[in-house]
């Protein structure tokens, strides 16, 4: 009887050890997966922003200028809060929990930049910022090109 109990005891110790080991492995791998997903999401959202018709530098029937944002549209979208107005019915599905800000670096612009979308995840713990360099086309008073970058912060 004692031998049986001892064997069973060791067996269950091994099982518990296995379960604990697997649980820890699973926890670490799902954390890694979540981090990877967050990075992927940040890249996806940045890609979407770069070709957003609401912001891009259109050229009529020709292809829009690559990695260029129209400053007039940008200012208007921020000023009128267009993305925030239509957040629930549309833009949340596009940008999810994120903050999108455009900064002008040359000539030096407002240090706060233009925040066109801001919807952090309530109680979110992780934040993944992604940056992308863009040109900024200003049509007023005469057409000129400035430089800056987009910062997309994604929350999880």
């Amino acid at each position: 009887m004692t031998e049986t109990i001892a064997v069973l005891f060791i067996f269950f110790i091994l099982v518990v050890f296995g379960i604990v080991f697997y649980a820890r492995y699973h926890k670490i791998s799902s954390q890694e997966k979540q981090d990877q997903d967050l990075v992927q999401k940040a890249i996806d959202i940045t890609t979407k922003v770069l070709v957003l018709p609401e912001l891009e530098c259109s050229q009529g029937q020709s292809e829009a200028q690559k990695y260029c944002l129209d400053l007039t549209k940008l200012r208007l979208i921020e000023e009128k809060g267009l993305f925030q107005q239509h957040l629930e019915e549309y833009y949340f599905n596009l940008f999810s929990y994120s903050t999108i800000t455009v900064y002008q670096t040359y000539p030096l612009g407002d240090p706060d930049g233009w925040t066109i979308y801001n919807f952090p995840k309530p109680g979110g713990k992780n934040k993944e910022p992604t940056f992308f360099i863009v040109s900024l086309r200003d049509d007023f008073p005469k057409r000129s090109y400035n430089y800056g970058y987009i910062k997309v912060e994604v929350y999880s």
Partner: protein
Amino acid sequence: MTPKSIVPTAIIPRAIVSKVIIPTAIVPKNRAPRINSKGQIEIAFNWIYILIAGAVILLFFVGIVVKQKTVSEQNLATEVVRLLDSIFIAASSADQSKIFLDTQGLKDYTLYFNCEGGVSEYGIKGQGLPLQNEIDPVFAPLEFNTRGLILWSLPYKFPYKVIDFLFLSPQGMKYLLLGSGVSNSLDDFKHNFISAAEDLNPNLRLEVVELNSVSDLNDLAVNSNELLRIVDFDGDIIIENSPIPSQFLNSEVSVVQFKTDGQNKAVYYYKKGKNGNWERLKNFDPVKPVPIVSLDEEDTAKYAAIFSGNDETYWCNMQKALVRLGLVNKVYSLKTEQIINYYEQDNLLEPAKIVNQCRFLLNAQGDQEVNVPSNNINSNNFNQNNFLPGNLNKDLGSIAGSISGCTELKQCADLIMAARRLNSADQLLPDYSCKNLFSS
């Protein structure tokens, strides 16, 4: 000293009992065989007990492995669909591009694409979680198995860019182009489609077969289970309830048919009926055809019709584009006001003559007869181009007002007219040194 034999067996563990050697000298002769028999039964019982316990433990672990395998397969399928979604995002972001996606590993699985109520759903049939998307229009056959996928992205412009359309074509799918397209004013569209389908890379080349009449279609050799899409450019070659040529009965064939009636453009879809006849799909509406919301110069919405699984998925994805049209239109309305305000300012850098000209062009009331204030402006030019000064805002307003009603051909025709007027107006503004909205 207590002899071993008189130790009460009740306090000896059962496993030890069988191993105890009892001296036969102190045990009555007639009892010895009974003890041996009991021991043998106990040994046999222990083995059965061990076997059962072992089998239960083994079954437990086999169960875990089987469960884990199923979960892993489901997770893998979900992961593959998520990966596909990321590839679709990248593909649709690359303007006017074709990408080949090797799906050799998925050849035994059926991919499906559906769209209902403005929400697309796609995934691997019977495996994992599907992905839902309310934003991006993806036009694809309803179900297919394939070793490779062609992802083709084209911008939808109305007249400014609204959204990127993504077309999916399984490798090996054949497009049978039927009719000349002349009677339906789709001749150019047909030829544009043929040249766009061509590609130097054979993986990116769509298989296109040109057929001029029904007899060409009847004579065509078709492999069984081949994925085929017949495109009727003339609008009257495929007739509802007419018999399907027999060689098509074992293939996966469907028809898209373009019809034009003046300003109204529509598309019909047919599938193989149960009785071997062409059956028109009426998921969008039992009577009304599906409108095509496209400017003549930009045929993206017509291309989309060719790649769509059926009438419902086509219109569902077009609805996404129309919702976005409303939002992009708002941005351009704000930009128009900005341009108007700019010319209303004093002490501008531009010469006074140009400023006055632009003020007039952007701010005049569009419906009124206008007196052209400058010799630079040729009033014939306005009429030729369907342009009335000051109409930019009005046309943007007309577009905004017509979007929700565009479920019927008439209302969609109004929307198309407003977009055409806006396009003409915007293209003319730079001719008069004025800032325009989206053309340059």
